[in-house]
Structure formats: C-alpha cells, structure tokens
C-alpha cells in the first residue's frame, strides 16, 4: 500500500515580487517584528496567519510603508519590490502605493458615488487621458472586482449605499483601478457574511492571474482556501513559511501545528 506522501520541499519557486530581509519594527520602545525574512511570490497569494499581536499586520503594513504614518514606528532592515528597496530615500511613497494597493478590514468607500470611488485614483495619478478612457478604467475595474453587473445601472449612487460585501468589492475595484502590481489585504472578509466572503475569495483567486496578493487573515480555513504560500507569525517572528498545502497538512514547527489545530495555549 502506498500512503499519501506529502511533499516537504518547495520546488521551483516562483520569483519573489517582494522580499523582506531582516525586518525589525519598533513601536516606540516596543519591538513588534524581529529579523523577519519573508518573500512574496509573484502572481501568487501569500497568507500571513498567527494569533493577535503576532506581527502579521505590522509586516503587511511595512510592505507599502503604511507604518510611516504611525507615530513612533521605526522600520529597520530591507524591503524590496522587484529588487528595489522601497525605504530608499528616493522612493516616492505616493507612487509606491500606486504600485502596492491595499484593501482594509472594514470596507471604507469614499463618501462619493460608486463611479468616483473607482475613478479617483486613476484621475489623481493621471492614468486616463479623457472621460472615455476613465469610463473604461472604471468599468474594467468593476468587472474585475465582480461588481459591474450589480452596479452598472447606478454608478452615480453613493458607494456607501451598497451592501457590506459589495462595498468591499468596490474597495477592491478602487485598489485595482490604478493597476497596482501588489495588493495587500488586511482581513478583507472579517466584516462580511459567509456568502460575501465566498465571493471575495473567488475574486482573490481570479485576481492572482494578474496581481501579487498578500492577505492577513484570522481565519485559517480562509488562508488554506485562498493562498498558495503561508507564513505563520508568532511573537514577532516568522515561525514557519511554506506552500500552503504543506503547512496545513504537515507543519514542521510544533507552534504552527498547535496553532492550526486549535491547541494554542
């Protein structure tokens, strides 16, 4: 009899889109991340999991320099996008965030129309030459976010008039409207019901054809469902990183095992 053998090596890894080397983050005197080395593979979904306060969201926010605006936050080490250090003095943070978009835990549409929510980014970044081109970007973005059919006849209505799941997809449409290369998602489904969650997860799976995605989630089932790579954070360090099927079937580290099987003390 042959018993199912689970591959333990990561063969032929896709190239890293982003790479963190010895990343240390401090909030004032308190250190939140310790020498984190972590790669984000191109056109794949990387899930960051771990208990509250483990540093997963901190790491996510380092990836598009969101920690710059946090009082007393200090980032050490190197984080590269396509080999270029994003913390270099010459880097324009606004341009950087156009390349690395973000979707938050709670849907946060602007208090504007559905159309304006999506059109805002391309307009300020000067991505559209005229109204027709902008219309096209809005439509494509809403289509990619799986929202077009539901809102095409009411683009002038406020984004906040949509349901929670629709609002989150609107935020995803807004993020992809500026053609980013990487999309960061910070618990994008935690405020949604299971059906809206399934829609977003399906969307994530489609988006990874064109984008590199990093998702922070408290739901391990969600990490297992949507990601190809998983990093388990605990107390500010990456305890284990690997291909998702391997991490969820035969984790190497005892702490990973305890966490994903619900034995965390």
């Amino acid at each position: 009899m042959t018993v199912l053998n689970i591959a333990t090596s990561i063969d032929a890894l896709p190239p890293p889109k982003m790479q963190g080397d010895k990343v240390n983050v401090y909030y004032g005197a308190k250190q939140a991340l310790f020498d984190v080395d972590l790669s984000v593979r191109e056109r794949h979904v990387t899930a960051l999991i771990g208990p509250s306060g483990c540093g997963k969201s901190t790491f996510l926010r380092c990836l598009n320099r969101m920690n710059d605006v946090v009082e007393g936050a200090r980032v050490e080490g190197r984080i590269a996008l396509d080999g270029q250090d994003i913390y270099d003095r010459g880097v324009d943070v606004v341009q950087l965030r156009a390349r690395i978009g973000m979707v938050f835990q709670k849907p946060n549409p602007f208090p504007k129309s559905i159309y304006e929510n999506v059109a805002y980014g391309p307009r300020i970044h000067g991505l559209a030459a005229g109204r027709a081109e902008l219309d096209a970007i809005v439509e494509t973005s809403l289509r990619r976010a799986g929202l077009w059919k539901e809102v095409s006849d009411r683009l002038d209505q406020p984004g906040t008039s949509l349901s929670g799941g629709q609002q989150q997809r609107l935020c995803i449409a807004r993020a992809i409207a500026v053609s980013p290369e990487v999309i960061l998602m910070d618990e994008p489904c935690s405020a949604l019901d299971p059906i809206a969650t399934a829609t977003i997860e399906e969307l994530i799976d489609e988006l990874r054809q064109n984008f590199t995605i990093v998702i922070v989630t408290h739901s391990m089932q969600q990490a297992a469902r949507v990601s190809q790579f998983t990093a388990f954070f605990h107390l500010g360090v990456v305890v284990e990183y690997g291909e998702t099927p391997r991490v969820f079937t035969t984790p190497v580290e005892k702490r990973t095992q305890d966490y994903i099987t619900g034995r965390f003390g």
Partner: protein
Amino acid sequence: MASEHTVRRFDQDLDQLSATISEMGGLAEVQIADALRALRDRDGALAERVISTDPKIDALDARVQDQTVQLLALRQPMAVDLRVVLSSIKIAAALERIADYAKNTAKRSLVLRDASVPPAAIAGIDRLGRPVQAALKDVLDAFANGDVDKARAVWERDEEIDQSYTALFRELLTYMMEDPRSITGCTHLLFMAKNIERAGDHITNIAELVSFRRTGHGFADRRPKGSADLYSAAAPR
C-alpha cells in the same frame, strides 16, 4: 498526541474515535485467535461463534464512519488531527477486512470437519497464523501508543509471513499430489492460508497508517517481497 485542544469537546471526539478503533482491534484479535483454534481443535461451536460475532465488527466500522464524518463536518480538523481522522477510516476498514478473513476461515473449518486432510497440513495453518496474531497484537499496541518504531518493526516482519505462506503453499501442493482424496480439504486449507496471509497484509497497512498519523508519511522504502517465487512454484514445469 500533542497538548490539548482549546475546545475540549474536540479532544473527546478524537478520543472516542480511537476508542472505537481499539475496540474493533481487540475484537479482530479474538476473532483470528478463535478461528485458528476452531480449526486446530475441530471445534464447530467455536467456529459458529466466530461467524456470529462478525456483524459486531461491521457495526463498529460503521460507527467509525459516522464519527469521522461528524468530526470532519463539525471540527474541520487540520494537520495531525486531519491525519488521525483520515487514517482512522482506513484502519477501521483494514480491521473489518481482517475480521472478515477470520470469519471465512471459521466457515471453511466447519466444512473441513467432514474432509480428509493430513494433520500436518492443519498444523501448517497454525504455524502461519501465529506470527500474524503476534503482528496484529503489536500493531494495535503501536496504534494505541503512537509508536512508529514498533509499527515499522511489524511492517518489516510481514516478509516472514509471506515466506511462511509460500512454504505452506508448496506443502499443500505436495499433499494433494500424494493423495488426490485430500484435494478438497487441502484446497480449503489453501484458501485459509491465503486469508491469513491477506490479514497480514492489512496489518502492514495499519502499521503504515500508524506512521502516517504521526509523521505524514508511511514507510517509503520498499519492503523486500518474499512471495515472488510463489508464482514460479505454481507454474507448470
């Protein structure tokens, strides 16, 4: 296994599942022992009891199915827990098969009471049965204690059982050639021998599953096969 789950009912569910399998294992052990004894002692009543006990094991197998389905649906086990649940289904199925072979052996021992067979041939079945009984006991211990080393030892020992089966196969052929009147009885004994040898194979499967539960893999390297020359023995010369 590891420390306890935060949700304690989860541990209780997993413990119950293992308890059901241990119960099945204990019954299968008794069934094999009784089937061999019924043959050796020509004890018809005991053979009947083996046959009538079999539905109990089938019922336990069904209970394992129910428990695993419920665990999967309600607890969504991961990693080691998932392996425990999956291997439980397969171990239960293997034990059910082993008990079936015991039942079949008991049935044939009833038929054999009226057939003429050399006593040495019956002793041969007993000789084959003993290491299988020992392997079953050991693999159940290995299961109960999650002892991969012990499971591996059981797995490696199957070679001896295979060789012993091959020897018995030849022995039975000889008896049949010597005295054609023994063909009916010896054919039944051949099937019994095959049953016991197959039970041994299921025991090695269980041994691999004991390893899979703990490590995520079985015993990858090939076990030397002892029965290859069996087929040359059976071929016409």
